[in-house]
């Protein structure tokens, strides 16, 4: 017994790496909505980069330690307090038995990640410990944490000393985002003058946003589409545009197939940013070719690998 949930917050989930390989049977990958922030948190406590951690959404979480442990918080910026005293993000924090850790509301970004040395014990289903809420799979009994839940450590904590993330590896979020993207396979269904808008105009993140997808408000696009497309595969990062003309950027819990035109595809490198979008944020798409996107992916891996060896398997 290690941590007891005192204040569960809006939605706190146990998340790890994605549940890859089952999309053909309708099972989404799930996993941390911002995989890079998950890796950064795990790094600070000596875990595998994709070890199970807490994904804390918007309103924070309050926990009480029942035994000594080491934790670290990354991702959306928030105030941390241990027994009422301020503590820092991006560093390894020691909690003594009985101490309270309060993760405050997200100030910028949407999701903070709390990792614990040794990783959280979680239900592994179809190869991943990640929670997929619609089917109640994985994580902590397939659901969001509730007050009174008892979280346990899965393995032996590594005897890593206390660390902090070097400044150049700390991400700073704003309320304005640029996501690199390729034109989607059905972008030609946008009427011509609207296709031009896709990579030029800002969108506004709608209140309709969750791990499955983010509605991007804009003046409605017009489509040359009857709405009778056959279902196509869709993935995290796919931007679908229903007949309403208001596009959806799909997230880690995205359905596996869909019948709406796919007008853009966010590059692999920028998909993790979807997990940090919050209501009212502005989003622009920056056009990339497939080859440019892969070059940028390799460059980013080279940069991040210095602090996060093995990140190229996740990001």
């Amino acid at each position, binding site marked *: 017994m290690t941590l007891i949930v005192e204040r569960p917050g809006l939605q706190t989930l146990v998340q790890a790496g994605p549940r*890859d*390989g*089952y*999309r*053909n*049977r*309708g*099972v*989404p*990958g799930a996993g941390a909505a911002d995989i890079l922030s998950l890796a950064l948190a795990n790094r600070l406590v000596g875990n595998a980069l994709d070890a199970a951690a807490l994904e804390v959404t918007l309103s924070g979480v309050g926990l009480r330690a029942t035994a000594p442990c080491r934790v670290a918080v990354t991702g959306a910026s928030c105030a941390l307090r241990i027994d009422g005293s301020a503590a820092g993000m991006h560093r390894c924090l020691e909690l003594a038995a009985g101490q309270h850790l309060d993760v405050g509301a997200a100030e910028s970004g949407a999701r903070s990640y709390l990792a614990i040395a040794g990783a959280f014990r979680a239900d592994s*289903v*179809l190869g991943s410990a990640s929670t*997929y809420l*619609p*089917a*109640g*799979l994985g994580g902590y009994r397939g659901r969001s944490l509730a007050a009174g839940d008892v979280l346990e450590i899965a393995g032996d904590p590594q005897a890593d000393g206390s660390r902090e993330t070097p400044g150049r590896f700390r991400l700073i979020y704003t309320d304005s985002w640029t996501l690199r993207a*390729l034109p*989607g*396979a059905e972008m030609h269904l946008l009427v011509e003058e609207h296709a031009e808008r896709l990579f030029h105009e800002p969108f506004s993140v709608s209140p309709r946003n969750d791990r499955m997808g983010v509605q991007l408000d804009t003046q409605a696009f017009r489509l040359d589409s009857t*709405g*009778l497309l*056959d*279902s*196509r*595969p869709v*993935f995290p*990062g*796919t931007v679908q545009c229903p007949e309403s003309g208001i596009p959806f950027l799909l997230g880690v819990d995205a*359905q*596996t*197939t*869909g*019948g709406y035109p*796919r007008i853009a*595809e966010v*590059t*692999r490198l920028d998909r993790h940013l979807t997990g940090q979008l919050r209501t009212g944020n502005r989003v622009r798409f920056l056009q*990339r070719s*497939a*080859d440019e*996107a*892969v070059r940028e*992916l*390799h460059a980013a*891996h080279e940069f991040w690998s210095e602090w996060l060896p093995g990140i*190229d*398997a996740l990001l």
Partner: protein
Amino acid sequence: MNARILRVADDRFAVPVESTARGQALAAELAQLDGCIDAVGAIACVEVRFDAAATPAARFRASIRDVLSGFRGAEPGRGLVHEIPVEYGGAAGPDLDGVCAALGMTVEEFVDRHTGGECTVAMLGFTPGFAYLDGMDAGLAVPRRNVPRSDVPAGSVGIAGPRTGIYSLQGPGGWRIVGRTSRQLFDPDAPEPFLFAPGDRVRFVAVNR
């Protein structure tokens, strides 16, 4: 098989296929490729997500081409036939009356025709275990709802165009719901979590008429 291989994202290729069954078989083969993360068969295409960090796109495209050149088509499925009990209409099938009105037939005729033939599981997709079925009586085709429901119960039997399908989980959905089955399509704790596999056949049986 000389299909076009299209790059549809920095880490994804699409291959058009002429039938859903071929797509399912092809997806199963492509899933075995080095560097493949997910191979997904849909109605008219297969898409493969590959590890673009570790596998050069040109090499992965060549691997797909090799699979296609040796691909003989769909193997016969495992041939299971499922009898699926369905409660038609009422709270279990809130769109049934509207569908019958649109089709100009009585509820009795609709149920006779929906239970009359045998459907084939074309694919699983959307959410875990959701079954897209081919082979419904063509006279029962109706479009999706204009406005999707936010909360369709698990087991709901729906129609979208020429296809009928069964919702595996509670959640949002736009198909016209004509009934509901008590059978569980997805059970993560079972040794085989998925009730159906592509190629299985399905007979609906009305339990309340």
